[in-house]
């Protein structure tokens, strides 16, 4: 196989193995929560595929490492060993270690490191505890020798699976000089009883020449479930692993390392995932093919209008054709966007492990509930929503949920519940992180905010407004976490990250009952529905989702207030006015309130009146980045190209509100 071809298969193998590791991890966690024995089989199968694949695709270190874990699992599977917390913990760390190995494999670095070595010894030691005889242990630990005795007895059905013993023995010949002695004891007594499709022979193979155990077992990787195999060292060169007595010392230094290592590996994996591929279900592709088919038909129908006169009858057909074309284009667009949509489960799935680790560390009992894992999100959003969610979940366990004592004192059950829920709501995706913990401490937050000079007093502030304070940058200090039970570690970063995705974060919290963090995200980032607004000679796109309604006001409806601001009455509230021509410095714009249009918009939970000359029409805007060649512009979320080829900027309401606030402050 050529190197390029191998690399291509390696990539597929790595992707599949990472999925396998995810399965292993989630199954282990389920097992930890008292899952059934079938899970052990699932874990074993995943480990086995990784081992086999690793050997085939040129990762012998990974293969032999996984082999240790697989042996352990095999004992559990066959009932020789009861699964307990220690084994699950060990296997979880094995999963982390393998992830790190795959990350290194992708980066082209050496696979083994000290963590892997230490863990490998631990696995071997765990095996040693329950191993039937000391002799096996001694032999196991021999990694390299000058001579080996290999006893290979295929089961009768091995040939049926396409494995040829002769090929295996030839391959073994590549490792050194062979002396092969066949064993005939299983041959049937009469020729009539001989089934030609079955394998009745066994072999004892003496291998002379320096070889590693991994190399030898690698030869038999594909058949090891279909034969009795023993590999014994005859002439030992080195004692690779420490004797079992010394092995238990290894776990201590290794224990801390895998966590950090896994984090790094995950970060690296995510970094490379940004440019990686998307798996698309065949249904979606079939749907696309159908649509393209219809598009072609419509196109050929329209093509007939190239020739001949167009009379009234044909005009009707033409109009119908154009309408069809518009519909197909729109459907095609939606379907293509659909390809980018992936279930949020891939983000949710990292949390069971994290919740388990954090809650154990903090001595809290947490039950994690996942709702709506199949909700689909744009891939870009999906990749970037993970970190803010990790933050929220960590905060919820750290600050929200109480220890069992405190929960009992508050009259709640020992175990706190943390719920992650995703759902579609209108044109948005809503992701909720809720807990039934202590909730936000209003007084403590107000106290902190006053101390930091964010507010003068909490008098008359709504609970919502108080909760909103924790998103202030000033709240993200270590002192907050120790001084009060409220949250606030980097919440401003969470809000900013979500805002980068065009979404918002809000809190609902009841003291003593718990909190709900709600992240609202747009379905996709690539296309938005917007209204085109005219300001002087210029055109801006106002996203439809942020528009509440538009009103024509009389000149005296807007009042100037001290400090240069303007207010107008909308229903029962007074809203500040942002004149777009002032904010963006447009020339020749309408200035009289009664000549233009007041568009009531909402951004970041704040309502304002956006004053423009007028609205021209609705259109879908393909969002283009300003940053690719220029830079971010405050109050502008991007640009789009209008039907005439010119560029129009897309207004970012939340940014505009912040811009206005800053100008007022300045």
């Amino acid at each position, binding site marked *: 196989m050529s190197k390029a071809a191998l690399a291509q298969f390696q990539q597929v193998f790595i992707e599949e193995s990472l999925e396998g590791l995810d399965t292993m991890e989630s199954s282990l966690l389920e097992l930890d929560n008292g899952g059934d024995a079938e899970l052990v089989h699932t874990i074993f199968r995943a480990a086995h595929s990784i081992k086999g694949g690793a050997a085939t695709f040129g990762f012998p270190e990974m293969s032999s490492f996984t082999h240790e874990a697989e042996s352990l699992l095999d004992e559990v599977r066959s009932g020789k060993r009861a699964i307990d917390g220690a084994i699950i913990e060990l296997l979880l760390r094995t999963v982390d270690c393998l992830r790190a190995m795959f990350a290194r494999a992708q980066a082209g670095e050496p696979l083994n490191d000290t963590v892997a070595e230490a863990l490998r010894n631990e696995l071997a030691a765990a095996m040693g505890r329950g191993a039937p005889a000391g002799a096996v242990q001694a032999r196991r630990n021999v990694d390299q020798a000058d001579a080996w005795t290999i006893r290979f007895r295929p089961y009768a059905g091995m040939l049926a699976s396409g494995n040829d013993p002769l090929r295996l023995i030839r391959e073994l010949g590549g490792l050194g000089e062979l002396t092969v002695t066949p064993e005939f004891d299983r041959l049937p007594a009469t020729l009539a009883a001989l089934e030609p499709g079955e394998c009745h022979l066994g072999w004892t193979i003496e291998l002379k020449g320096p070889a590693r155990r991994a190399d030898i077992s690698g030869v038999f990787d594909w058949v090891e479930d279909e034969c009795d195999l023993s590999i014994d060292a005859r002439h030992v060169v080195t004692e690779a692993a420490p004797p079992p007595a010394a092995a238990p010392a290894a776990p201590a230094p290794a224990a801390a390392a895998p966590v950090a290592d896994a984090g790094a590996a995950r970060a690296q994996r995510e970094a490379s995932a940004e440019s990686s591929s998307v798996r698309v279900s065949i249904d979606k592709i079939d749907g696309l093919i159908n649509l393209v088919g219809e598009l072609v038909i419509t196109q050929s129908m329209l093509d007939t209008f190239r020739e001949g006169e167009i009379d009234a009858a044909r005009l009707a057909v033409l109009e119908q054709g154009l309408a069809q074309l518009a519909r197909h284009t729109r459907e095609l667009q939606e379907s293509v966007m659909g390809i980018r949509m992936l279930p949020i489960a891939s983000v949710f799935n990292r949390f069971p492990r994290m919740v388990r680790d954090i809650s154990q560390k903090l001595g809290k009992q947490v039950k994690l509930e996942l709702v709506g894992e199949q909700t689909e999100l744009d891939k870009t959003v999906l990749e970037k929503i993970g970190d803010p969610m990790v933050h929220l979940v960590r905060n919820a366990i750290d600050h929200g949920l109480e220890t069992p004592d405190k929960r009992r004192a508050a009259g709640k059950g020992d175990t706190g519940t943390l719920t992650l829920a995703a759902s579609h709501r209108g044109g948005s995706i809503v992701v909720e992180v809720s807990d039934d913990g202590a909730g936000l401490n209003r007084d403590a937050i107000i106290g902190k905010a006053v101390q930091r000079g964010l507010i003068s007093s909490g008098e008359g502030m709504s609970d919502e407004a108080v909760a909103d304070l924790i998103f202030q940058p000033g709240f993200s200090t270590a002192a907050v976490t120790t001084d009060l039970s409220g949250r606030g570690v980097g919440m401003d970063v969470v809000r900013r990250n979500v805002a980068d995705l*065009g979404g918002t974060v809000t809190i609902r919290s009841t003291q003593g009952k718990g909190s709900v963090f709600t992240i609202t995200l747009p379905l996709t980032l690539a296309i938005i529905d917007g209204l085109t607004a005219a300001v002087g000679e210029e055109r801006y796109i106002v996203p439809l989702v942020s528009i509440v309604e538009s009103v024509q006001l009389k000149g005296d409806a807007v009042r100037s207030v001290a400090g240069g601001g303007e207010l107008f009455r909308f229903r029962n509230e007074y809203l500040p006015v942002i004149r777009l021509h002032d904010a963006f410095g447009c020339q020749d714009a309408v200035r009289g309130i009664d000549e233009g249009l007041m568009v009531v918009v909402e951004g970041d939970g704040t309502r304002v009146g956006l004053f423009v000359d007028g609205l021209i029409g609705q259109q879908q805007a393909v969002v283009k*980045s300003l940053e690719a060649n220029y830079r971010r512009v405050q109050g502008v979320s991007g640009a789009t190209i209008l039907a005439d080829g*010119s560029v129009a900027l897309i207004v970012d309401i939340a940014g505009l509100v912040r811009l206005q606030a800053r100008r007022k402050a300045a």
Partner: protein
Amino acid sequence: MSDNSRSEALQSQYLTVNLAHEEYGIDILAVREIRGWTPVTRIPQAPHYVLGVLNLRGAIVPVIDMRLRFGIEREAYGATTVTVIITVAGRNFGVVVDAVSDVLDVSPDAIRPVPDMGTTVDTEYLKGLTSTGERMVLLLDVDKLLQPQDAQMLEAALPAASDVKAVA
């Protein structure tokens, strides 16, 4: 044309453009295309010399007026006014100049350092100067046209740009 045959292999080509009766050279490898002047979409909070953005086959590209960039008085755009699209470090931007005139082969020997003298252009943005026949050509350092000084200026113009929402 350079008559120095020894360094022919090292010769580089420059696109010469006119700006306020002086001739400037832009490294031709940085030039992506030359387009006639078309109106651009103004962007808010931009330095005065950034005219706006244009649609370059689907990409949004900022456009700079070279006269304003170098503090020369603005002149009405005419039939010869062109936008030269330049690519530096993977980023595209357009510069508006009075006209394009020629492509010049320049050998490294023929590039002389810029004396600190009263040219209209800040010598900081010049790589050197060369002459062709009677004419003197100032060679622009395109890498410096938008950065780092410009980047800093842009940052200064927008002190708190970090919390601006962006949609990719």
